């Protein structure tokens, strides 16, 4: 049977975050935590593969203990097992340190429940917003890598091949590769189902498997958390709401207005940048 691992992250819904205009800091209070929605599309695709071919689905996350809530949500949707990797020492991780811990986690998941054939990640997170963790995991585990997947055309467990559509800026790439493979999910991939009643009952009783650094005897502490993160946030700022000395253009006729506007545009440095002159 196929074994599918889905990486999910609990994130603050950054669309709801506002900036305090007086202090220029983020107002996080009252901002709901959600499962990063791209990750839910990854889980949904895993569930569809399970419906079609039969599969075992393990959901993993690295995060603080409250992330348990998100794991339970995944269980209610139909995941078989959920793993929370949590430890103070993991805090402050950037994408490099995160992919290290998640790769270690997936290896341990494989020891427990058998080798993974497909790993799903989201296209990117709402908070980190990098899309780098997926390729990072693929690189560390030497998996084939299919990013920006908007459609899974076919999964063939016998031939061990998958065919997908990657949605790129200029079109759709139809690509096929072998398992084990890591796929990053777009929202176009599917419509996420609702939890079933039995699913909700199971989730209510379910206790996620929890691992800390102590459960990873060979983990290198220099590669985790803040210490293992090469990138450093040196400074944050709120871009100034642009104060624009706007200019009103008026005239007696539409032609006069048009003539004045285009004259201004053609005199500005735009004209050269856009190759008008």
């Amino acid at each position, binding site marked *: 049977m196929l074994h599918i691992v889905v990486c999910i992250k609990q994130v603050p819904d950054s669309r709801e975050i506002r900036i305090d205009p007086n202090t220029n800091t983020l107002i996080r209070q009252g901002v709901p935590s959600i499962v990063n929605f791209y990750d839910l599309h990854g889980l949904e695709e895993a569930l569809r593969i399970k419906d079609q071919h039969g599969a075992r689905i393990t959901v993993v996350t690295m995060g603080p203990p409250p992330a348990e809530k998100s794991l339970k949500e995944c269980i209610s949707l139909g995941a078989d097992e959920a793993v929370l990797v949590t430890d103070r020492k993991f805090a402050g991780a950037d*994408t490099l340190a995160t992919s290290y811990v998640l790769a270690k986690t997936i290896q341990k998941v494989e020891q427990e429940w058998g080798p993974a054939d497909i790993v799903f990640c989201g296209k990117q997170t709402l908070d980190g917003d990098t899309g780098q963790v997926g390729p990072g995991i693929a690189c560390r585990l030497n998996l084939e890598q299919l990013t920006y997947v908007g459609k899974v055309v076919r999964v063939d467990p016998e031939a061990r091949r998958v065919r997908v559509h990657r949605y790129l800026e200029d079109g759709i790439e139809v690509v096929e590769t072998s398992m084990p493979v890591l796929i990053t999910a777009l929202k176009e991939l599917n419509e996420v189902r609702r939890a079933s009643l039995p699913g909700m009952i199971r989730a209510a009783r379910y206790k996620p498997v929890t691992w800390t650094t102590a459960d990873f005897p060979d983990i290198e502490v220099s590669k985790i958390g803040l210490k293992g993160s*090469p990138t*450093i946030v040196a400074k944050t700022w709120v871009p100034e709401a642009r104060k624009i000395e706007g200019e009103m253009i008026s005239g007696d*006729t539409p032609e006069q207005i048009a003539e004045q*506007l285009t004259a201004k545009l053609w005199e500005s440095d735009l004209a050269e940048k856009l190759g*008008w002159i």
Partner: protein
Amino acid sequence: MARERTNDQMPDWSNYRGVLVFVEQRNGIAKNVSWQLLGAGKKLADKLDVSLMALVVGDQVEHLAREAVYYGADKVFLCEGPELKDYRTRPYSRITLKLIEEIKPEICLFGATATGRDLAGAIATHLPTGLTADTTELDVEPHPSRLLLASRPAFSEKMMATILCKQYRPQMATARAGVFQALPRDPGRQGEIVRIDNPMSEDQIAAKVVEFIEQRGGVNLEDAEIIVAGGRGLGGPEPFKMLQELADALGGVVGASRACVDAGWIKHEHQVGQTGCTVRPKLYFAIGISGAVQHTVGMSNSEVIVAINKDPNAPIFQIAHYGIVGDLFTIVPAITREVKKRRAAKLDPTAAFRA
């Protein structure tokens, strides 16, 4: 992204020098972002007093190596082969990685495109080093620190953050399309082109690109330099033709507010704003758009904004560089005519006298 550490000593990185830009292409046509990155890279290289290098990978892409020189590269590494026609993670990352390990650039830049992110994510992990995603501002501290100051939007564009990578080299970043300025193409520019080998053969590559379905019909708002956007003031689907004519005359694309998309006047792919695209074109026309914050978060970083609205109190005027109070149905066609006249005058300077 980690918080700043204190008291850290920077290792000796004196054997890492130069700026490397990955040139992205499909079927021998380069993505604009590649030349924009060479423009950004040139500024960094000049400030550090090092050379600007480029990497071109593909099948029959020698002409792009020359183009990279015209756009500012001093030295271009060229890797060609039929098995490199389409981008695939394994061979492309192997080639790029090998080159980085050999030439040791201090900075590597990739487009923040699907391909650029796919490739950079794999390479940064392998090296390993820090990778800053989706940057919109790039600068360097001068010698001796030579640190890349890579700044990017965070929290749905509400904040900016400057990211450093002190303990690892090279310093890597992906950068957004349409943000940085390409240098003017100079076909007289001289540069060195160095051929490198592809270490992988077809039978070592599991991934097969079966087909590429080009989407010419689709709009590409994110890359557009000029956007002519319409709102509920248009009153229906028909007037979007008028906007399309202005967009065609300017060489731009048509955008829309959510009100129009919800009303079914135009497809969602045209929508600008919080639940649509975030754009930063050089020129943005907001026509019959009131300027609700959910719309303006997606377009307020446009270089020049022109607003046309019959309501003088419409909030859009607060962020517009040029405001026109009036009826869009008469003003837009007049602008289109004027634009056509001016552009015709460029092609044929005498046309202005005959018009």
